[in-house]
């Protein structure tokens, strides 16, 4: 039984390979034909999706065996002295879940883009990038070792760069793409370092081997170092996720990344790429677990801080995509602190449900933006539900899901995280999480009420989007509603995806009630503020104008970074350039000047008078004769070459 499954799992490499093939086909063959390019790309991703589903079903069927013994296939990739790296695929419940989520959202987004990107000049290029992205992301999910993961991790970043800057003629898009790449690069620096230290210490980057090394001969390994060493490596590795998953203080690129086409935001900057950091921490969880508790506490603290930090900014934003972006940041913080507090399953669960409803909301927002001809300010919108019933309804489902309303998907995952936080002894983090849940519900419903309810704006002539766009919405809405049920009846999700020993935990209905209450409170507050207008948002903002300004300007973090880059980095560059031109080159040119100057002086000896030359000649003869007369032996002693060549 398992053998047959194993045969199936061996073909997992096809899942990333197919989109890559489609990328090559589009880039080299079909790029002139928009229809062909999109068809190739969508066909490839749909095939991958069906393969992913097959593997997912296989995993479910294999059950206990695959949970305990992941199916790993490795092929040697690089083999030199001091560096052996394999490439391979790992199939376990975690990767199967990720494969399903990524292929699903990617196919939905690609189908959706048929409508959204219709008529765009770079249509083929868009699908090429999409295929490349899907391929890299899936390759990353299947990675069996850290280096392989890193390679795809960076390729995902490249695709993100290309897709954010897809409309490269817009200066803002260009700058956003650049910023995204640079910011994540800072994190990658840490990840790279962590990887190097891990390899030098353990001689492998393979997840299974690393885990085994840490588990079995932990004491032997620490002969050289101490537990602190592992902690340092854990912190370094965690720098990567900080950049990729937009944790504070490297979160600044994600809101700007909204300059890309909206489907891209849905796919890359909400559902898949940004959770790569979370996925990495989950894959490397054994490392964080073995490091001193400070590592996990740090992750929990940073995640919680990011969650509330981003949520508070989201309240004061007006751009529909930016609100969603900050919401994404906040939810990523959620997943991160879930890992930090030990809610491994909860984090992965939330990763999955969040992918469904956040992709749904982004695509919904895209639908709105499409209908309103690229207006993005929520105050320019209003009363769209009537005009766009499918978009409106599905968006509402998304809002309920993210607010943690039962029985929508977000409820189950969020509840589990919060319950675990309290249960594992992190009351402060629980409090922060709860408050963030309240804020989330508030700003998401604010968004919904302002955009879809309220008075219509006469200058808008919205109409429902074409089928290619609404069908993905409906499919994602379906998963947002029912996705959470995988936790039932006996927490099956956690049975498959867990770390260490599996503890069966019943759903804590009491705690769940509290978080639902917080969500309801948020929705209610938004309702009375923005629909009933019982509280004037303006007067509140006016009353706390300082706080409002701070939130509106995102705590001035961007400004701070800009200042640092402008003044410190570029300033240093200028200083060093000055140094190079005037000191280093100055010395060189100075030497040249000395040579030239001495040449100018010595030139005068060249009188052109033969008699002078003859005089010097004979004078030199006399001098040399005298030198030899004084003694050959002394001369030979100071012959430098004789010393250099002969010494032994």
């Amino acid at each position, binding site marked *: 039984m398992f053998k047959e499954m194993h045969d199936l799992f061996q073909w997992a490499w096809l899942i990333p390979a197919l989109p890559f093939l489609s990328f090559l086909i589009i880039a080299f063959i079909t790029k002139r034909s928009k229809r062909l390019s999109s068809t190739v790309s969508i066909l490839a991703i749909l095939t991958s999706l069906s393969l992913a589903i097959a593997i997912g079903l296989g995993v479910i069927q294999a059950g206990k065996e695959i949970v305990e013994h992941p199916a790993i296939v490795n092929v040697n990739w690089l083999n030199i002295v001091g560096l052996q790296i394999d490439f391979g695929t790992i199939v376990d419940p975690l990767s199967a879940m990720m494969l399903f989520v990524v292929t699903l959202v990617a196919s939905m987004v690609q189908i959706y883009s048929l409508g959204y990107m219709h008529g765009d000049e770079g249509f083929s290029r868009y699908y090429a990038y999409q295929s490349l992205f899907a391929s890299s992301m899936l390759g990353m999910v299947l990675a069996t070792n850290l280096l392989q993961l890193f390679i795809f991790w960076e390729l995902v970043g490249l695709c993100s760069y290309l897709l954010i800057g897809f409309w490269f003629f817009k200066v803002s898009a260009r700058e956003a793409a650049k910023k995204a790449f640079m910011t994540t690069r800072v994190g990658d620096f840490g990840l790279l370092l962590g990887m190097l230290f891990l390899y030098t210490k353990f001689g492998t980057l393979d997840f299974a081997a690393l885990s085994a090394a840490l588990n079995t001969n932990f004491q032997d390994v620490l002969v050289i170092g101490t537990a602190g060493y592992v902690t340092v490596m854990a912190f370094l590795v965690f720098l990567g996720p900080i950049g990729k998953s937009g944790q504070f203080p490297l979160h600044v690129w994600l809101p700007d990344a909204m300059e890309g086409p909206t489907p891209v935001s849905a796919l890359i900057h909400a559902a898949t790429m940004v959770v790569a950091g979370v996925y990495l921490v989950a894959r490397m969880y054994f490392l964080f677990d073995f490091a001193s508790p400070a590592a996990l506490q740090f992750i929990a603290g940073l995640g919680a801080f990011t969650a509330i930090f981003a949520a508070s900014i989201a309240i004061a934003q007006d751009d529909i995509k930016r609100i969603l972006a900050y919401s994404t940041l906040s939810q990523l913080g959620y997943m991160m602190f879930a890992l930090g507090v030990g809610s491994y399953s909860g984090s992965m669960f939330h990763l999955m449900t969040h992918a469904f409803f956040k992709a749904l909301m982004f695509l919904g927002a895209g639908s709105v933006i499409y209908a309103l001809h690229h207006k993005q300010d929520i105050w320019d919108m209003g009363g769209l539900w009537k005009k766009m019933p499918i978009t409106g309804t599905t968006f509402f489902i998304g809002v309920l899901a993210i607010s943690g309303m039962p029985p929508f998907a977000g409820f189950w995952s969020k509840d589990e995280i919060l319950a675990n936080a309290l249960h594992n002894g992190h009351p402060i983090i629980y409090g922060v999480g709860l408050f963030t849940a309240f804020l989330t519900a508030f700003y998401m419903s604010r968004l919904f009420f302002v955009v879809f309810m309220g008075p219509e704006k006469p200058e808008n002539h919205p109409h429902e989007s074409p089928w290619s766009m609404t069908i993905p919405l409906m499919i994602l809405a379906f998963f947002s509603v029912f996705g959470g049920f995988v936790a039932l009846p006996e927490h099956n999700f956690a049975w498959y995806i867990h770390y260490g020993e599996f503890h069966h935990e019943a759903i804590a209905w009491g705690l769940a009630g509290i978080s639902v209450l917080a969500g309801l409170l948020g929705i209610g507050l938004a309702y009375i503020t923005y629909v009933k207008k019982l509280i004037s948002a303006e007067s509140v903002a006016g009353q706390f104008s300082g706080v409002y300004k701070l939130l509106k300007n995102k705590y001035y973090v961007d400004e701070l970074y800009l200042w640092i880059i402008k003044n410190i980095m570029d300033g240093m560059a200028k200083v060093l350039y000055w140094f190079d031109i005037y000191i280093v080159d100055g010395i060189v040119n100075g030497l040249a000047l000395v040579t030239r100057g001495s040449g100018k002086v010595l030139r005068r000896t060249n009188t052109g*008078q*033969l*008699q002078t030359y003859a005089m010097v000649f*004979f004078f030199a003869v006399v001098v040399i004769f005298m030198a030899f007369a004084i003694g050959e032996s002394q001369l030979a002693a100071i012959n430098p070459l004789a010393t250099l060549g002969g010494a032994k």
Partner: protein
Amino acid sequence: MMNLSNLSVGLSTYLLVGAMLFCLGLYGVLAKRNIIALLMSIELMLNAVNINFVAFNRFLWNQKIDVHYLLTGHVAAIFVIVVAAAEVAVGLALIITIYRNRRSTNVDELNWLKW
């Protein structure tokens, strides 16, 4: 240092005569302005060299060598004379040419070798 008996005509004496002629010629080359005087001084130096050739041949060579090669020093002197004759011919022709172009035989003014 100098033994009076050595003042009888030995090799050193010839060599010293040659050296004196050579240095007088050298002085002429270094100190005269007229290019023809330079040429004459050079002839003096060549003569000094010839004296040396012949003197070495006379005093050192004939003790050591097979009789067929006895006059090698003379042959060398002959060649020097040949070269000197050729040199004088060409040199004087050059001087006349220069004089024709420059209206001068003054070495001080012949400094176009300067860069």
